[in-house]
């Protein structure tokens, strides 16, 4: 990409262009530098300092404390560590449940809505996509109402003879609840006696609390539409010859989907998984609006804990340290996922039939892909330099 542009042109305007180039790019460079690069450096300093939020973090009264803030979270037993462990546990359940459900559901919706014979496709697409464009605050308010103890969901459950839980006040994990129903209330000693990050293994195996389940349902509700659009555009690129060949060979609808369509959707599936992985580790808005971490810290997430440690408890060093650990987790997960992806991405011969989902080549025509609110950065990252070079 770069090389092509560096081709020498007839000179003269060279100096002109250099000035113009910097002039054009300077507003963005200044803003990005000031509000993205410098902040990260400042936060790196704060995460190894004992700043309490008063005055400047660079004042002489602020001390360097080394890795204390990180140690309190990761190695030293105490409230800070057990809160952090709790937040990691809660968010892990969120990640583990949201990603498979949203990927499967969005693929299902895409395949259904993309059927050629379907009338009213536009209506269905709109219906499924609409939750994705609305504000997380508005959706959270609506869900708080739907899932309140005497709310719509419990009323509906009651109608079919099920007693709905007190969604936002029961701190018990659903796995513990299930075990309790089978008569297992006390943990085996092996699980209760040992633990990780200030929580016993028994606590780690609690499952998400009902409140967290509401947020999980909400995440699936709001993101499946966006990912559905990614799958639709991928499906439309491979529909046609391949599918028809399958029909000629007498493959049934299910066989065609399983053996032809699904393998060819792999690149898009991995995009969806990556975006999901990045997005689901950043749960903040819902928690801030809805539960503030309650009941009993079962909806605490690292992002919210980072915020509350700094802005509410004035432990800025700890808050910044949590932010960096969260960043490390996201980076590690993404790299891990990329490694898995690289091993399986072997469809060389068929490659020419599809274009890799929405990114790069079709970006201007596909505003949908970056509409993923939290993960747009990663989305673009996927589509940028590497792919351009291959082309």
């Amino acid at each position: 990409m770069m090389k092509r542009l560096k081709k020498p042109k007839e000179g003269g305007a060279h100096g002109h262009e250099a000035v113009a180039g910097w002039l054009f790019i300077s507003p963005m460079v200044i803003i990005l530098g000031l509000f993205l690069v410098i902040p990260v450096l400042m936060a790196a300093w704060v995460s190894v300092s004992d700043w309490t939020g008063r005055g400047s973090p660079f004042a002489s009264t602020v001390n360097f404390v080394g890795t204390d803030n990180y140690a309190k979270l990761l190695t030293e037993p105490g409230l800070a560590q057990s809160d952090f462990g709790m937040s990691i546990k809660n968010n892990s359940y969120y990640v583990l449940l949201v990603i498979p459900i949203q990927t499967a559901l969005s693929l299902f919706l895409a395949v259904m809505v993309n059927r050629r014979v379907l009338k009213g496709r536009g209506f269905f697409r709109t219906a499924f996509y609409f939750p994705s464009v609305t504000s997380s605050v508005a959706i959270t308010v609506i869900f708080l109402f739907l899932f309140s103890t005497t709310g719509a969901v419990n009323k509906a459950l009651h109608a079919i003879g099920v007693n709905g839980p007190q969604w936002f006040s029961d701190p018990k994990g659903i796995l513990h609840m299930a075990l309790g129903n089978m008569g297992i209330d006390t943990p085996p000693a092996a699980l209760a006696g040992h633990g990780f990050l200030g929580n016993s293994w028994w606590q780690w195996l609690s499952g998400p609390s009902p409140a967290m389940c509401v947020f999980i349902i909400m995440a699936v509700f709001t993101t499946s539409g966006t990912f559905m659009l990614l799958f639709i555009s991928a499906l439309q690129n491979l529909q046609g010859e391949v599918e028809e060949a399958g029909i000629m060979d007498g493959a049934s609808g299910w066989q065609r989907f399983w053996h032809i369509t699904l393998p060819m959707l792999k690149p898009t599936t991995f995009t969806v998984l990556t975006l999901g992985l990045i997005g689901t580790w950043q749960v903040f808005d819902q928690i801030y609006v809805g539960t503030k971490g309650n009941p009993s810290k079962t909806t605490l997430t690292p992002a919210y804990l980072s915020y509350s440690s700094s802005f509410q408890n004035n432990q800025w060093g700890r808050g910044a340290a949590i932010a960096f650990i969260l960043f490390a987790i996201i980076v590690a997960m993404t790299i891990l996922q990329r490694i898995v992806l690289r091993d399986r991405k072997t469809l060389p011969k068929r490659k020419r039939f599809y274009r890799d989902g929405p990114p790069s080549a079709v970006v201007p025509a596909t505003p949908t892909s970056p509409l993923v609110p939290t993960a747009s950065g990663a989305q673009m990252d996927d589509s940028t330099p590497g792919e351009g070079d291959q082309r």
Partner: protein
Amino acid sequence: MTASELQHTVPEVRSAKNRRFDKLARRSRYSGILVYIALGILALVYIYPFLISIANSFKLDPDAAANPISLIPQTFSTEALQRLFEADFPTWFKNSAIVTVVVTSGRVFFNSLAGYALSRLRFPGRGLVFALLIAVMSVPSVVLLIPKFLVINELGMYDTYAGMTIPLLADAAGIFIMKNFFESIPASVEEAARIDGAGVFRRFWSVVLPMARPALVTIFILSFQGSWNEMSHMIISTQSPELFTLTKGVAQLASGALSAGTQYPIKLAAATIMTIPVAVLFFIFQKKIMNSSDGAVKE
């Protein structure tokens, strides 16, 4: 001899194919009905929460608590809306509008400037800027909450409109969209203007930019939606109630600051109203958002 053989066999193959297609068509008609039912139920699940929130905005508190599912208020009441507009709601709305207008117009302009420079102009340090942009994009936004506050605070922009809007102008993803689009416009379109002696800005402004309309619309949609719905940045950049945006105000409303107990109609009315602008945007640009890749389909 061979020809007659062919003539004989070809229709046979055709009819066999036809029969198979008939069977497939029949089967797909039955499964088609099932698909409609399944999709219909799913669509209802996706839409019903919004219908419920609209309906409950017009109910009285006890009615909303007793009949949350019903779409028809027992007594139709605009009390919730009235109370909302007597409160700070108009201020929140105004602030959200200010933020959205400033951020959207700023992003459209600065993104296209930067995208043009990165795709068309040769200047020293371009590779470095490009690399930094990629690095910056990979940082998750939630991680930046505390860092951003630190700088905003240090610059004395805390609790000002400047602090609410200027940091949001940073939009690396948008620059990439513009850059990619500009690269798809052939360089030759600028040649004529260049020969006529038009300067860089003039070529950008009157030749290339008008051609980039689709990309500009994309940036517009993304920025409008993003800044209207932005909450976390507003939390860390402001504290005074006069500067609350809808997201922050409604969040506070939801946690019960303005309303004692569970006054759902007022909360749901607020949620409904704050959804209207993005809903309007969505329906205006629906074709572009939803059918963006239909061009690729051979029907």
